[in-house]
């Protein structure tokens, strides 16, 4: 199918990585985005790259250390994670997770308080201990999103920004063209990786993709002295020290919202910032004097079981959908590979991703959001 044309709907990390993988296989790729690449959840997350729960994990773990070289642009990828327990219950939970990793063959060390302080200079003595994942890592979401976009262009792919997809043309059980307000793009295959807007787009094709969007928030401090491992979190926070030294952390209650066809109307942060700050000051007490300089929010869509949906449809049979349920950034090197395989070969070559298929929701109740309490506040 080399020389074929694939249109990708959505210039987040998932769509961009898919486009990059396809371009690496010699496919002519056009990415369409309603705004700027990586502008939504792709550029507003914690940068974690340690999704051990996923069937894509081995590929994620294999690829990240190579990404700078493969893309030709810096991603700020850094290896490993340390997770610190600040309560007895967390200590119990994190050790449970560590045992699970040992069972699954992921290298992990359990650290006592002294070892935590040695490994994490900003930590204090009030913690219960920590676990050190000698796998996984983190990267800079914003830099990585642009890196995919540039790498894709370097391979001959096209990215059209500020051009939202409005509809599809179909014929003979296939999507034959993707339409925007200004143009129609003929295609052999389509990848829809449009975040929360995926549901409304797929509804046009008669496909029900159950997704519920929610808003989540993060804060960032001024730079702290560099720690040997930046991927430090715990205390029910996620986040990292950036390579500049800033501490960027999120976590806590989310707000379910509704999102229109053009995506989130706004991404407001709220006083939840104060609750993130208290936990971060407890997690890294030697950083408690540092200034918070920004907060932000992003909108994430979740599937009913919280796992990604990556699937090639049967009808129309030239459409692959990908919605990552809040783990899209870290998995992006691998999800792009999987999507490439689905587009070109009809099956993922490196992992069994059947658990990510859309058919698992075939018997989903119509009121699945209400039942879960995933409705916007009236």
């Amino acid at each position: 199918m080399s020389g074929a044309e694939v249109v990708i709907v959505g210039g987040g990390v998932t769509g961009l990585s898919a486009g990059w993988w396809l371009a690496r296989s010699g496919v002519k790729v056009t990415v369409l985005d309603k705004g700027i690449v990586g502008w939504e959840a792709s550029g507003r997350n914690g940068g974690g790259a340690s999704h051990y729960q996923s069937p894509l994990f081995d590929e994620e773990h294999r690829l990240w250390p190579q990404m700078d070289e493969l893309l030709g642009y810096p991603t700020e990828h850094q290896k490993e994670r340390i997770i610190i327990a600040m309560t007895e219950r967390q200590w119990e939970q994190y050790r449970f997770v560590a045992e699970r990793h040992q069972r699954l063959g992921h290298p992990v060390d359990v650290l006592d308080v002294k070892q935590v302080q040695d490994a994490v200079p900003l930590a204090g003595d009030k913690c219960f201990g920590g676990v050190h994942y000698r796998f996984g890592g983190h990267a800079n979401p914003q830099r990585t999103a642009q890196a995919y976009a540039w790498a894709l262009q370097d391979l001959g792919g096209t990215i059209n920004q500020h051009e939202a997809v409005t509809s599809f043309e179909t014929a003979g059980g296939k999507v034959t063209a993707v339409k925007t307000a200004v143009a129609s793009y003929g295609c052999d295959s389509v990848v829809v990786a449009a975040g929360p807007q995926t549901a409304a787009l797929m509804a046009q094709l008669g496909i029900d993709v159950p997704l519920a969007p929610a808003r989540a928030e993060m804060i960032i401090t001024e730079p702290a002295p560099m720690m040997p491992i930046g991927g430090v979190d715990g205390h029910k926070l996620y986040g990292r020290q950036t390579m500049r030294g800033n501490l960027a952390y999120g976590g806590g209650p989310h707000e379910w919202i509704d999102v229109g066809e053009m995506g989130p109307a706004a991404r407001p942060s709220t006083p939840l910032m104060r609750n993130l700050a208290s936990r971060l000051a407890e997690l890294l007490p030697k950083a408690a004097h540092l200034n918070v300089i920004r907060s932000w929010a992003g909108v994430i869509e979740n599937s009913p079981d919280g796992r990604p949906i990556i699937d090639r449809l049967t009808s129309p049979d030239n459409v692959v959908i990908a919605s990552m349920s809040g783990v899209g950034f870290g998995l992006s090197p691998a999800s792009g590979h999987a999507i490439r395989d689905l587009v070109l070969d009809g099956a993922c070559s490196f992992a069994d991703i059947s658990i990510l298929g859309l058919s698992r929701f075939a018997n989903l109740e119509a009121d699945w959001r209400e039942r879960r309490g995933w409705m916007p506040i009236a």
Partner: protein
Amino acid sequence: MELNFTGTDLCAINGTRSPAEAHYGVVVIGAGRSGTAAAIEAAKAGSSVLLVDENPVSGALMGNDVPLYFGGRMTAATQNSERMLEAIFMSAPALEQAMEAGAEVLLGTSAWGVYRNGPGVASLPDQVVGLADSARSWLVGFDRIVLATGARDLALAFPGWNQPGVMGAAALRMLLTRYDAFAGRRVLVLGSHDLALESVLLAHERGLEVAGLIEVRDAPQGSADLVAQVAAAGIAIHCGQTIASAKGGIEGVTAATLTSGEVIACDTICVAVGLVPSIELVDAMHGPRALNPARGGYIPAGGETVSAVGSCAGLADTGFDHIAYRMEWMRALAAISAPDTIICQCEEVTRADLLGVQPPNYLSRPAPMCARSLETLLEDGPPNPDQIKRLTRAGMGVCQGRRCRDQVAMLLAIAADQPFGMIPLATHRAPVRPIPLKIIADWHENEAMTAAWDVWFGIPTQWVPVQDIGTRHEGEHREMLYTGMYE
């Protein structure tokens, strides 16, 4: 895994937020002349009124050019917070009238965010403003909020600007008039519009030496009356030129070289090219704002519960196009500055790296990266300062872009050959003042929020390792990590 849905997500924000600590009919942010007048008026009309002002800010914050561009030219007196408080009360007798009228007045208290329900958020129990002093932060509810946050200094980059002694006109005025705490002796002023002329007249009146004014245009720009007063004081206005560089030593500026080659000795270079309405709070709350070149920049477009008074609502409209004027300065300074001139001081981003959209020095720049630039980025879409910020870090530092955001927008406009108004305003985000973690922290968290807190969404199936699905480990995982959720 069998989940028993109950219609409730135990990890959602619903109902978990603390209510505001206090509620006022009117909260006024900024106790300058306009803010204090607004507070007095509201109090006299019978409203419960809270008037807050961030001044005096700590010495450390002043060192970070918060809220104005002090350029390190404060005396040690600014470290004495009691003296500073007293200085504010001495310089603003209206504050006492506000208190007599019944307004509660809090100085040394910054407003770092205004929050209300709207697009993307419906979970706030009240519309609130976030406040902080040197000890703690808290939330205050309001029926109406009046923003009287003033205007901040426009900073401009030239070779040698990133050293002590280069400062802004509003900062100079504050140090001279309110605090009597200006550490310079001999001041050179950039600009010749009213702001610059008033600055030199003030400096002259306070017994400072004024080394002159530099004007990029061919003639003085301010009112004839002010120009005459400056001439009468024997102060020279060097027209048709700019500053080519500032020389300095360990204590900062010692001299300026003009484009004519003339060297002028001075310990302070006051950038008095313009003031920018301080709309951080409005923008961070997604309030409407619009560019108004005659009023100094983006100004609040108004609303029922949020209003703006004083220069935060816009500079006095004298028909002068402030944007055209500062663009002319920026163009001239960019033309004489080397590409390695720093634009963002916090993150040490040079103009070459800004316009090259290059990453910071601690990252590698392989060949494809080096081949990228603003020019290639513009092939993908119009220039956007937030996108440039993400790539170059310009504006991402602790000064929160106060020193560089206007310059970045101007340089993008110039490089993209577009009018200034075509460059989107770089996003402001709360906290609009840098506030330490331990201060902004909520140390009295609502129990409901503590109970709802999960690292992510609290979905029991979300993080079960694929190998464990359908095994006994799945249940153990849920029991250990998601107790109570959908049980």
